[in-house]
């Protein structure tokens, strides 16, 4: 249930994001070339593929962290510029070690120079931190938190950004299984209704969280046909349909690795 102060995504309609003719070179060869890719509006898209194929690079391209080359165009479905509408969650929690959990959650205001967050905004951050189970650790520094706890702070930080497009680069890969599943549930709940692109190497995670799943393969890399999965997310772990799909996905990944 979104917090009243965090914009209800369904009201503001997060846009679709389209990537046209993307090209990026790496080490002299094209990592991908003439790549077309669309993130459906307000849905979760998961991207998998062998290591080094270019998933993270594609993500960074969309985030504006890599300069577009050649004819590459990245546009939002509603025609507005994408800059300032993206929130980023990296592989590491990216918490600043000198700030408390609360201050890390409020990092956006600090970095944008919005002045000290007012009491309301602070209140929202605190509530969200309580919601993810960190109510007693508001003043703790990252070094005093476990990996899972830190990633939860990162999740709250992402939410506080209140942006319609969320880009995530294997955010739960460094965690143990139980923590990972719990965080997947939390993320699915809190980020519901936004346009999300999740890069992951875990097939099960993709199948639990994704409305659409893509496999990226080859050099130059290409994306396969989108695999639409129906039903609400997060899908339960013991869902027989999930288990059946997992086999299929792993087969596709294996084929991609040989491509």
């Amino acid at each position, binding site marked *: 249930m979104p917090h009243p102060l965090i914009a209800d995504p369904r009201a503001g309609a997060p846009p679709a994001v389209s990537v046209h003719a993307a090209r990026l070179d790496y080490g002299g060869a094209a990592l991908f070339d003439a790549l077309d890719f669309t993130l459906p509006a307000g849905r979760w898209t998961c991207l998998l593929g062998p290591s080094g194929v270019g998933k993270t690079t594609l993500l*960074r391209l969309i*985030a*504006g*962290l890599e300069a577009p080359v050649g004819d590459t165009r990245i546009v939002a479905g509603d025609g507005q510029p994408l*800059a*300032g509408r*993206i*929130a*980023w969650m*990296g*592989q*590491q929690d*990216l918490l*600043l*070690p*000198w700030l408390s959990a609360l201050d890390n959650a409020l*990092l*956006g205001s*600090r*970095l*944008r*120079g919005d002045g000290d967050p007012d009491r309301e905004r602070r209140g929202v951050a605190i509530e969200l931190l309580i919601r993810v189970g960190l109510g007693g650790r508001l003043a703790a*520094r990252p*070094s005093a938190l476990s990996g899972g706890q830190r990633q939860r702070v990162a999740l709250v930080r992402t939410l506080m*950004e209140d942006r319609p497009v969320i*880009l995530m680069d294997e955010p739960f890969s460094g965690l143990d299984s139980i923590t990972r599943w719990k965080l997947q549930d939390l993320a699915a709940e809190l980020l519901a209704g936004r346009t999300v692109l999740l890069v992951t190497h875990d097939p099960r995670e993709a199948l639990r969280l994704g409305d659409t799943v893509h496999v990226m393969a080859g050099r130059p890399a290409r994306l396969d046909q989108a695999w639409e999965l129906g039903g609400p997310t997060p899908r339960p772990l013991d869902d027989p349909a999930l288990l059946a799909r997992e086999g299929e996905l792993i087969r596709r990944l294996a084929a991609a690795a040989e491509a």
Partner: protein
Amino acid sequence: MKAVLRALLVFAGLCLLWQALVVTTGLPAYILPPPTRVFAALVGRADFLLSHALLTLAEIVLGMLSGVVLGVASALTLASVPTARRWLLPVLVVSQAIPVFALAPLLVLWLGYGMASKVAMATLIIYFPVTSAFYDGLRHSERGWLDLARVMGATGGRELLHVRVPAALPGLASGLRVAAVVAPIGAVIGEWVGASAGLGYIMLQANARMQIDVMFAALLVLGVMAVALYYGLDAALRRFIPWLPQSLPVSSKE
């Protein structure tokens, strides 16, 4: 407290070694006086040594302050202004390459025989370590944080102030530790070249008068000052930069 006791023990051990060295090698007192004579000189000329020691300490502390301010400013400039890198970097390297005792007479001639030239010497000698350490820290910020800051919409200045500077503070801390140990050398060289007071001057005077025990007593006081400065600074750094990653768990708990 335990750390102080440990330091005293090490010191006592070194003195015993020193005494043993004098006894076994039979070195005459005018080359290496035994610790007993040095301590006698220390006690006998205590207030004399103390007043000169305070002067040298003042030179060291002022030199460190100005060196750190200059160094931090230079590092920030190097990190934010690309043209500065082209011009300032060579100056930085040259400041380190020139042996300070070659510059000392010039500084004394320009700045006079008072404290100014000694402070300038100490500043010069720590300028490079401080700037270099802080600049390296600023340059090598975690890529992930910079990515996050970019996507969040931070300007270059905000990113510098809120991400790169705090991230570089541990690097600056190492630079400061080096500075604490090296600054006394600058002050003393300055005194050798032109001064009428201070521990460096005492050492020179005592040496010329063959009062080698007094010379060593002054040396000892200088050594103790430098060590105290280092540990004092270290404690202050730990307090202000408590998130320093410690790979070897050290006495931070004591």
